[in-house]
């Protein structure tokens, strides 16, 4: 009964979305306030209906109602509660419901907090948002009904893929989707602006917080996913340039560019058509991620169960949404007024370079991911592109960007002073040389990779700190005055400094891990010892126990350094009988400076056990850097100017805004 209610709520949401996507748009074209004002209750109703549907599906999972096909295929009565709930989005159908739920949540947010938007823009944004909703709700109802019944109901379910039964992965999809779908806001605003034929700083002021929120979530989501791959897959690595990873990385790169170009629109009223194009591309790449994971056109380690027909439907949706937006762009963008002019050496110039480099980086990842597909379709030839391509092509594009991140914020708007900026960056230069020198002195054999990498990270960190210190006149005025100044800075300034520092921390971790990682793989019997990076790991015993829905073999590895005990690592090898699938649970001893990482493979008492040990220097910095970026995003998001609903009412807003805002 509850499942049927959920199914009905989804159908209801589709009907509401159809209304939301047409009536307000028509009203905006006609200038009819009443028709336009329909957008807000419609967006709220759509959100509520989808929330009911999502709740109904969650209820099915929590109560283990195996008469629902989706629950029977992806859940099990013995599964811990956390994974019963996360199982809702651990499969294709449920994840699509989460997708539309988040889409409707963003629409609801505009409806609830968009009091100060011009009513015609708000009506159009919500209409476009409604159109996306129509597409995906229709897709769910027609091809991927999550509420399909299974009669007779089986006694127990088939369980969730054990790799996905993990706290890191429980929260990875919702964060990733908040990011993917969050870019739909930028897209809807872009399309609405194209329909209106007008982009002004007020528009950018609205787009920025949504983009920032989406970017922050996506950063967190990608970091969680990479962290999960690191400790759960048991391969010791954290990024594999796998098509599915790239699918989430491309919108991140494009979104980062969008975040920066929107600043230029807001502050200088320039780069307008480019920003609109970026908003369309960013959301297009998000949709492409959804498509690639489900269509099976590319093989990947972690894809959903693929279904070419569903893939084709998503591709059709993608073509209609992005193709339609680009047609609109081709018609309307040329007539948009050009904004403020600026010199090449200026803050705007720096941000244009940022956008160019990030676009090239996005294109590099795009080509690397899809080249095999293109070539196969053209010539029938099959090629492979692996980490060697990405390391060779992506890193060189990012290097000038890192140099620029330190310089850009030092330049003034309109006309900057490059020699002056460079002169003020002497602290960054010193930090850069110091970092390089320290790395050089620590290395036994001189390798240039890490020296260059750390020099870049030092430059970036030094530049970001210098810029921040200059704004509060640190060491030039009494400390109390400086602190007062820091309090007076807009939070977005702190956010930027934090995000750039996070990038520097991330670079340190990535460079150190790729050059200095050590690994040892041995076949060990209890009592034997493995040595790595000054640590001695002794295999004490292997213990066999049971978990709620799995059996496990736990190795006890006592770790010592120079004879002094450090810790005990307990890597596990689990076997999930329902899915007949083994998983590895790595054990990690993490200090601030390095991870000692152990995993065990197959084995037995007689032949011994495969024990793999990695020493990964600075790996925690990779996620620490991402965390600092996320904090930077959140701090910036809390800026008063960007706070949802806080910006000042446009003084020339027509009185209808007040009327619509009052109800």
């Amino acid at each position, binding site marked *: 009964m509850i499942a049927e209610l959920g199914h009905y709520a989804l159908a209801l949401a589709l009907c509401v979305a159809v209304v939301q996507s047409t009536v307000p748009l028509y009203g905006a074209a006609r200038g009819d306030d009443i028709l336009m004002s329909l957008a807000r209750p419609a967006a709220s109703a759509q959100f509520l209906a989808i929330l009911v549907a999502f709740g109904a599906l969650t209820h099915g999972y929590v109560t283990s109602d195996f008469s629902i096909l989706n629950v029977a295929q992806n859940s099990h009565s013995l599964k811990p509660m956390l994974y019963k709930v996360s199982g809702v989005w651990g499969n294709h159908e449920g994840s699509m419901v989460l997708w539309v739920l988040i889409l409707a949540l963003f629409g609801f947010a505009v409806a609830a907090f968009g009091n100060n938007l011009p009513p015609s823009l708000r009506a159009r944004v919500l209409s476009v948002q409604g159109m996306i909703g129509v597409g995906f709700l229709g897709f769910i109802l027609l091809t991927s009904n999550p509420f399909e019944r299974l009669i007779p109901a089986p006694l127990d379910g088939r369980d969730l893929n054990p790799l996905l039964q993990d706290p890191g992965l429980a929260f990875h999809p919702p964060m990733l989707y908040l990011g993917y779908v969050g870019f739909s806001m930028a897209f809807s605003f872009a399309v609405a602006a194209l329909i209106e034929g007008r982009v002004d700083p007020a528009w950018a002021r609205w787009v920025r917080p949504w983009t920032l929120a989406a970017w922050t979530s996506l950063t967190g989501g990608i970091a969680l996913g990479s962290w999960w791959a690191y400790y759960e897959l048991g391969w010791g690595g954290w990024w594999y340039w796998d098509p599915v990873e790239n699918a989430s990385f491309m919108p991140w790169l494009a979104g980062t560019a969008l975040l920066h170009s929107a600043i230029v629109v807001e502050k200088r009223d320039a780069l307008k058509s480019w920003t609109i*194009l970026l908003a369309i591309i960013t959301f297009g790449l998000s949709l492409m991620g959804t498509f690639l994971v489900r269509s099976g056109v590319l093989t990947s380690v972690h894809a959903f169960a693929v279904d070419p027909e569903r893939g084709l439907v998503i591709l059709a949706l993608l073509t209609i949404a992005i193709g339609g937006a680009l047609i609109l762009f*081709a018609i309307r963008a040329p007539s948009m007024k050009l904004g403020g002019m600026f010199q090449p050496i200026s803050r705007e110039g720096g941000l244009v370079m940022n956008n160019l480099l990030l676009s090239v980086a996005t294109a590099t990842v795009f080509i690397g991911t899809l080249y*095999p597909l293109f070539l*196969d379709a053209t010539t029938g030839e*099959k090629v*492979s592109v692996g*980490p*060697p391509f990405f390391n060779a092509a992506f890193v060189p594009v990012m290097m000038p960007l890192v140099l620029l991140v330190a310089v850009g914020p030092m330049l003034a708007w309109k006309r900057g002073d490059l020699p002056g900026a460079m002169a003020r960056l002497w602290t960054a230069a010193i930090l850069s040389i110091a970092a390089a020198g320290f790395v050089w002195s620590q290395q036994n054999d001189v390798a240039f990779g890490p020296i260059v990498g750390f020099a870049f990270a030092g430059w970036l960190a030094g530049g970001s700190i210098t810029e921040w210190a200059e704004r509060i006149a640190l060491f030039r005025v009494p400390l109390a005055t400086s602190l007062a100044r820091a309090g007076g800075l807009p939070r977005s300034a702190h956010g930027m400094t934090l995000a750039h520092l996070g990038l520097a921390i991330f670079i340190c971790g990535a460079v150190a891990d790729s050059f200095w990682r050590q690994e040892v793989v041995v076949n060990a019997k209890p009592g034997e010892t493995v040595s790595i990076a000054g640590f001695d790991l002794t295999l004490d015993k292997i213990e066999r126990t049971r978990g709620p829905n799995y059996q496990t073999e736990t190795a006890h590895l006592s770790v010592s350094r120079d004879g002094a005990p450090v810790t005990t690592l307990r890597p596990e090898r689990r076997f999930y009988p329902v899915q007949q699938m083994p998983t590895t649970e790595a054990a990690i001893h993490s200090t601030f400076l390095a991870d000692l990482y152990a995993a065990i493979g197959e084995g037995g008492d007689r032949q011994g056990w*495969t024990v793999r040990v990695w020493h990964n220097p600075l790996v925690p910095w990779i996620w620490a850097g991402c965390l600092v970026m996320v904090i930077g995003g959140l701090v910036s998001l809390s800026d008063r100017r960007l706070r949802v609903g806080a910006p000042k009412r446009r003084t020339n807003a027509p009185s209808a805004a007040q009327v619509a805002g009052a109800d």
Partner: protein
Amino acid sequence: MSRLLYLLPLILFLGAAGYFAAPILQGKDPSTLPSAMIDKPAPARDLPALIASKPGIDPASLAGDVRLVNFFASWCGPCRVEHPLLMEIAESNAVPLYGINYKDAPGAAVNWLAQLGDPFQRIGRDGDGRAAIEWGVYGVPETYVVDKAGRIQYRHVGPLSREDYQEVILPIVERLREANG
């Protein structure tokens, strides 16, 4: 001219969308070998030895018996996953295994084999990935069944699981052995 510039994103997008649609509409599965390569002789290219003590791979060495040819790399995570199975296959002597080391630093590959074990009878080095292109490798790991005449008979994409090996590969190997006496 400037109007055309604004049309460019649309044109590029439609081109890309066409490429996405093509494999689905043609019903292609990326994990199957294009039929063109099946029953064709394995590409004739001499691959130098990776390890001094073990010969490399040349066309002549592929004839005479049914063999598995495995593309691997030390940087490849999934290769690590299938490696214990390859070791078992080597120990069982069911079918000879040849390895082709794909786009790898020789030192890293040698270390990798020293640590995980070396299941291969011959190992060829494919440093620039040319051989992989000729064989039609989509991504490592991939495993090919080559018959007595040195022709490719089957291709497996991705890490080999025990089921793949026992239920698909082994029957093919046995069929090929019987077929040619």
